[in-house]
């Protein structure tokens, strides 16, 4: 959408308010919800991908080195990934102001 949500007029609406852009919620920064964040000790990582499979946000993907890392734009800091990591790569730390 070109317009911001709050600027939309009734004429901007698709028929039936249908949303035509799949996956458009990707613009939403769910990372603002986070109170803690994952940190990594990639040396231990076996690239098994279990962290990614078990992230409710679906925000973990291989970084440029092929290590699985959270996208903090989305990560809500639930702390699941450290629990699923078989090799204890991940640790949660408090967000700071």
């Amino acid at each position, binding site marked *: 959408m070109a317009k911001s949500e709050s600027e*939309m007029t*009734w004429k901007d609406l698709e*028929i*039936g*308010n*249908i*949303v035509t852009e799949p996956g458009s919620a990707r613009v939403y920064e769910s990372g603002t919800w986070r109170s803690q964040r994952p940190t990594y000790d990639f040396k231990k990582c076996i690239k098994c991908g279990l962290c990614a499979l078990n992230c409710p946000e679906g925000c973990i993907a291989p970084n440029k080195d092929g290590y699985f890392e959270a996208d903090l734009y989305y990560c809500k800091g639930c702390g699941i990934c450290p629990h699923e990591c078989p090799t204890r790569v991940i640790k949660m730390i408090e967000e700071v102001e």
Partner: protein
Amino acid sequence: MATRTGVEVSVGVADAVKLCNPDVIAAYPITPQTHIVEHLAELVATGELDAEYIPVESEHSALSACLGSAAAGARTFTATSSQGLALMNEVVYVAAPMRLPIVMSVANRALSAPLSIWGDHSDLMSVRDTGWIQIVTENGQAAIDNTIIAFRIAEDQRVLLPVMVHLDGFNLTHVVEPIFFPTQDEVDKFLPKNRFPLPLNPDKPVAMGDFAPPFIFMEAKWAQEVNIRDSRKVILQAWDEFEKTFGRKYLPVEKYHSDGAKVLIMTMGSSGETASVAIDELRKEGLDVGQISLRLWRPFPFEDLREAVKDAEVLIVMDRAISYGGPGGPVASEVKAALYSQAGKPKVVSYVISLGGRDTTVSGFKDIVKKGIDIAARGSQNEYEIYGVKE
């Protein structure tokens, strides 16, 4: 060429639906709608109609299945009545704002309690805020013609709204009468293929039914309102086009000896036909009385109504429903509201008649006209009058 045949109106409606070649029919039986859906089931069973007939487990699911079907881009039909319409109430409300062009026949019948399988308009009134286009018919021919017309209106790209075609239970649904049927070719020409613009389709995913926070809800509802109001011109075009092709004309407000008449009665649905016999007789007796009948209930034909009553001094409005503890007859109430600011508007007398299958006969209508004139002249204690209740 159109053929004239005798047919039970319900069967005729089903045959009309068949001519429209729907893809999906989802319906639940209820008297007096049953013959419509039974005949459709029959047509599917014999192969005369190639459609999926979904024998759902309730009316709520009937219309819900229709939502899914229409959203997938299929031509979709259902029919119900009374309790069925009430049971699907929540679903009725969502079809219009979702812009799903479903066509539904409603065999009008009283709402319980007490249970009655007989006719009145309480079911019709229960959905008056739902945003469906609503056409009310007064004889078999109108019911059948408007079933075909309904698909054209609903699926018009400028409209994309669900349409209800109301026909009185029993008084229409169960009567065998002569009907002119168009041919398949004629219907094919009149009714273009369905092409819902944004269907559910993996090739081009869309999301239908997002929830709307306060920043946008009111805009969405206003868009809906503008849309149904604007459908008026498409409806008129469809009726014009229908007349050109088939020779039968439909108008939002039908007139019968109404031009110039000082006294008008206003009817909606099949009782209008009986009433017009009364009008004939009264005119023969020398009374300057005419009739208007409301065919287009939603969008409400403000202009046509005002035009039709502009010369009248007395307007006697018949309702077949009561808004209990409220304004009495809903039609009369809306008519008064519509005329409220008109200069030189008629006196409006509101009569509730024919609830739950009670007949209003020719002499009943004559009686009402005479009493109505009297009330207009001398006033009444009542917010509205009711006719035929045993005291």
